[in-house]
């Protein structure tokens, strides 16, 4: 089945205080589809004044929203989930158009998972409670969770709706108001969501502003009108946001990417069965979402004994990936999200080859026919080399995996941990001891064991090392958006006796 480009208005506004408003300066930027470089629509090129307006709206709404019963807040989150679900196809199409990813993924992953995250946090906030401890017969310590107030969220362009749905629901469920800035490459699905849910929340609770990092992102991240900033992106901007937060003594959460190892032990090939089939797919998942995933399994570590046979199967499966029109449900891999990403990936293919990496498949751009000739397509690529090469150390954020051999468990762990990052990892083995011991030895926040690229709302996600700190998803995320109010209550009628 093939879809076609969805319809858009000519221009969109920022969503502030419950309605769409034009940017104060009257400037817009053109948003183009990476599928064919055609114009989608114009979005506000916001400046500090727009950001301030959104922050003021959020601050005006925070008292009332923070005191709204959890049951009511949860009901509204469920409502958002229902609205996304009822319009699943429209959201999927808009996301594919804006980001370039295959419609197969947006229909089956991005949008349904987004729905589930809204529901998960709606459920969490009803089920969890504070704590109370009787410290002695007359003293009670009571811990009440209070919202932080106003939260700034800066989200990336690789899963625009899903990353919004990771960040917004827990902040709203806990009673915070939010000013969210989508990435300037992908403003469309956040805008569509605001259109659909414009009346769901009281004005000012959710605000979405568009614009460029230095003009809109920076005034948001550095504002003293915020109580927290949550950021997904890269290390330099991460450092800048932490600096700004330090001036305001605000907490931050950082999700800054990775260079995740996907490790295949000899036992994977003990039989030619469903499990081996799954493991081969697990290796090829580097091409999922065109490799534009912070946990992309971009380093493949394969044990010596099975290396040749296993890689032969992986290369064959990779070559079978259908890269074509992203609107076609048969297409498995679409376009890279923007021209600069496309150019960056090509520059990495160049340095990889120059450093002596062997191209096992792909290794170049893919020129498609017709309108798609203007889009940004890279062939799924496997490079063979060693872990000191730059392509093994840097996040390429494209459909490129770098593969190397290892002798034994010790060497596998050494290579896996020889990286600046520690976000994700994959371990594939039929050995019960390795199943536990290897993941424990890897310094990463998420280790997939005999699976990869699963992102359930109920499992915490976040990085070690330079991949950042703080967690997303899971019940524990609620506390990243709250203060603890401790009430220490004395039921003793007698004085201390000091004075």
């Amino acid at each position, binding site marked *: 089945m093939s879809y076609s480009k969805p319809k858009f208005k000519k221009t969109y506004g920022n969503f502030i205080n419950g309605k769409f408003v034009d940017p104060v300066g009257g400037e817009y930027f053109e948003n183009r589809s990476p599928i064919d470089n055609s114009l989608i629509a114009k979005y506000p090129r916001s400046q500090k004044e727009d950001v301030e307006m959104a922050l003021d709206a959020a601050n005006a709404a925070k008292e009332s929203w923070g005191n709204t019963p959890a049951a009511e807040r949860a009901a509204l989150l469920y409502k958002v989930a229902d609205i996304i679900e009822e319009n699943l196809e429209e959201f999927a199409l808009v996301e594919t158009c804006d980001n370039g990813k295959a419609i197969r993924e947006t229909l089956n992953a991005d949008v349904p998972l987004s729905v589930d995250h809204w529901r998960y946090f709606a459920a969490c906030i009803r089920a969890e409670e504070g704590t109370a401890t009787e410290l002695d017969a007359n003293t009670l310590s009571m811990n009440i969770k209070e919202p932080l107030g106003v939260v700034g969220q800066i989200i990336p362009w690789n899963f625009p709706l899903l990353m919004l749905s990771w960040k917004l629901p827990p902040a709203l469920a806990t009673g915070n108001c939010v000013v969210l800035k989508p990435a300037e490459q992908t403003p469309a699905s956040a805008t569509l969501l605001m259109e659909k849910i414009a009346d769901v929340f009281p004005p000012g609770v959710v605000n979405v502003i568009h614009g460029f990092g230095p003009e809109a992102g920076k005034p948001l991240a550095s504002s003293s009108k915020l109580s927290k900033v949550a950021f997904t992106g890269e290390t330099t901007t991460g450092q800048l946001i932490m600096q700004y937060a330090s001036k305001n003594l605000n907490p931050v959460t950082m999700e800054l990417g990775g260079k995740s190892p996907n490790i295949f032990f000899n036992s994977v090939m003990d039989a030619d069965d469903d499990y081996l089939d799954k493991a081969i797919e697990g290796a090829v998942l580097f091409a999922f979402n065109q490799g534009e995933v912070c946990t992309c399994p971009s380093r493949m570590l394969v044990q010596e004994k099975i290396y040749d046979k296993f890689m032969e199967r992986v290369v064959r499966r990779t070559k079978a990936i259908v890269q074509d029109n992203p609107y076609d449900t048969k297409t498995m891999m679409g376009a890279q999200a923007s021209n600069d990403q496309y150019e*960056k990936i090509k520059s990495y293919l160049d340095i990889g080859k120059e450093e002596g990496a062997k191209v096992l498949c792909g290794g170049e751009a893919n020129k498609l026919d017709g309108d798609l000739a203007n889009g940004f397509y890279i062939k799924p690529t496997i490079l063979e080399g060693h872990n000191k090469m730059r392509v093994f150390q840097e996040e390429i954020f494209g459909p490129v995996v770098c593969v190397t051999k290892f002798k034994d468990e010790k060497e596998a762990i050494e290579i896996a941990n020889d990286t600046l990052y520690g976000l994700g990892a994959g371990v594939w083995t039929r050995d019960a001891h390795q199943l536990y011991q290897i993941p424990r030895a890897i310094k990463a926040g998420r280790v997939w064991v005999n699976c990869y690229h699963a992102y359930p709302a109920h499992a915490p996600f976040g990085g070690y090392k330079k991949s950042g700190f703080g967690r997303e998803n899971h019940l524990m995320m609620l506390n990243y958006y709250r203060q603890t109010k401790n009430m220490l209550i004395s039921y003793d009628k007698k004085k201390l006796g000091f004075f």
Partner: protein
Amino acid sequence: MQRIAITDLAAKTVRELKTKHGVLIFHQSGGCCDGSSPMLLEKDDIYLDESDVLLGRIEGIDFYMNKDQYEYWKHTHLTIDITEGRGASFSLEIPLGKRFITRSRLLTEEERKFFGDN
């Protein structure tokens, strides 16, 4: 001789931005999304210390990289280029619809000797 260079096209944009923003600095990023791209910032915007390595000066602007990252990059020579595009970070060229990118090659034998690298 230095480890970093800039293309004429990128230099032109740098000059434009210097006129607009004053003293600037390049910092090579790593990680997700816009990671692995150079960021052009106002000099006082970023806090630098001994954990940052100065790679050289291009178009009158110092180019820094975090020391940990430099350890993995130091055998390569970098050229800062520019392309049409839309980054999502605080780099100053983004509103122009352009994005700096880092192109790399291995250091030559002569350069390796000069820098005293093995």
